[in-house]
């Protein structure tokens, strides 16, 4: 199978308005920046960006463009705001969240990871101890009051747990160090983060790879994401990140 597409623009050409797109990356590390830039060029509207740990703080330029173009309806994340309240007040994304123009729904990071993992693995729901005793136990945590909804809890072996549900994106953008033509991927160090699990979770996974290799060049025991999860592969230049979110 040859899953290689010649450009990021072609790779995302079918994404419709209203799509839910998983965006991996942990702040500045492992963010699929070239695909995000293609999304800005395409101008797709009404997007839900399902993140894990602040990739849009890491790809701040792209996020500002997406907000400015009014492409984003909702962000799901564990860490989407600048740490500094002062900086946050000046951030167009936070301003849109404060104005209720963009919905921001937050979960603990491990719960985010597990929600994608569940979606990829055919598990519709699971119990987790994370967040018990906090507002996370009481409600879906979102800036849009109408969308807050109580969560279910359960005592198992004497401990309280929260029921959380799988989160299945329509698309995932992933960034890998190496990919082969059949979609087998390998990541670099901490740039792995949410890339693998989001590749498993989405209906359609699009991988941008810094190095495109022929089938068989990756050793079978060295593959991080088996090709079955990856539908399109596109070669990109290695992106450049300033390692800071402040």
């Amino acid at each position: 199978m040859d899953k290689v597409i010649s450009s990021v623009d072609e790779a995302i050409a079918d994404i419709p308005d209203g799509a839910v797109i998983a965006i991996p990356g942990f702040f500045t590390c492992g963010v699929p920046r070239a695909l995000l830039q293609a999304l800005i060029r395409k101008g797709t509207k009404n997007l839900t960006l399902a993140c894990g740990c602040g990739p849009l703080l890491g790809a701040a330029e792209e996020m500002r463009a997406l907000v400015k173009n009014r492409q984003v309806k909702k962000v799901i994340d564990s860490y989407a705001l600048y740490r500094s309240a002062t900086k946050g007040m000046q951030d167009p994304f936070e301003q849109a969240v404060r104005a209720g123009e963009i919905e921001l729904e937050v979960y603990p990071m491990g719960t985010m990871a597990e929600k994608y993992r569940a979606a990829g693995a055919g598990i519709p729901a699971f119990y987790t101890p994370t967040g018990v005793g906090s507002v996370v136990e009481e409600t879906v945590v979102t800036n849009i009051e109408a969308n807050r909804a109580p969560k279910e809890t359960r005592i198992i072996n004497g401990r309280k747990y929260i029921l959380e549900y799988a989160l299945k994106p329509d698309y995932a953008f992933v960034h890998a160090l190496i990919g082969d033509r059949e979609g087998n991927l390998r990541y670099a160090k901490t740039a792995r983060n949410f890339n693998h699990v989001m590749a498993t979770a989405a209906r359609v996974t699009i991988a941008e790879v810094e190095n495109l290799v022929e089938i068989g060049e990756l050793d079978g025991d060295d593959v991080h994401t088996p090709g079955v999860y990856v539908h399109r592969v596109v070669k990109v230049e290695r992106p450049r990140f300033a390692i800071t979110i402040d």
Partner: protein
Amino acid sequence: MAKKLKGLSRELIALRVANELEDGTYVNLGIGIPTLISDWIAGRDIILQSEIGMLKTGPLATGDEVDQDLINASCQAVTALPGSCYFDIVESFAMIRGGHIDVAVMGALQINDRGDYAGWSNPARGLFVGNIGGSMDLCAGARKLFIAMEHTTREGEYKIVKKLTYPATAIGKVNKLFTDLAVIDITPQGMVLREVAPGLTPEDVQSVTEPRLIISPDVREMAL
């Protein structure tokens, strides 16, 4: 009250926590003062886990060492050590939530004498949402939870309170508290004052602590 006592620097709070960590353990350090602990344990037999998906995180990277594919959970470029390894976020939080991390050290905005603490959201920001990050998972899963923080706010207001006014990160999970002024155990009976900063008395510490402290019979000066 609005009173500010002179205590340890942030670096020395970090040193005091470092002295508490045992060799042969796996430790996760949160943002803020906890991050400073890594300087004090360099060379010791303690392995740092980073939520981003790394075990045996090395010191901060400088100059040519900087690799954008190698950062810690605070978004700082770090280095690897012999034996460092990487894994995906699901594995990282399996480690954390699954009870495989011996100690997590976190910062806090407020803590009470039942071991509840608040750290993820400052209501002054005026947002119902906020940055939870990995904090709640670490509270749920680490075998021991330490808090390292300034004893009071910059303005001298209580951070150790009877009742949290900030949104809780976790309830009843904190084992031990390290501040610039004191080391305090959280026990079923309440907060037990174990150590005070050089030059301070237990009464001094109580004066900037809202809940009643149980003074340990062998209360002593902080071991640095």
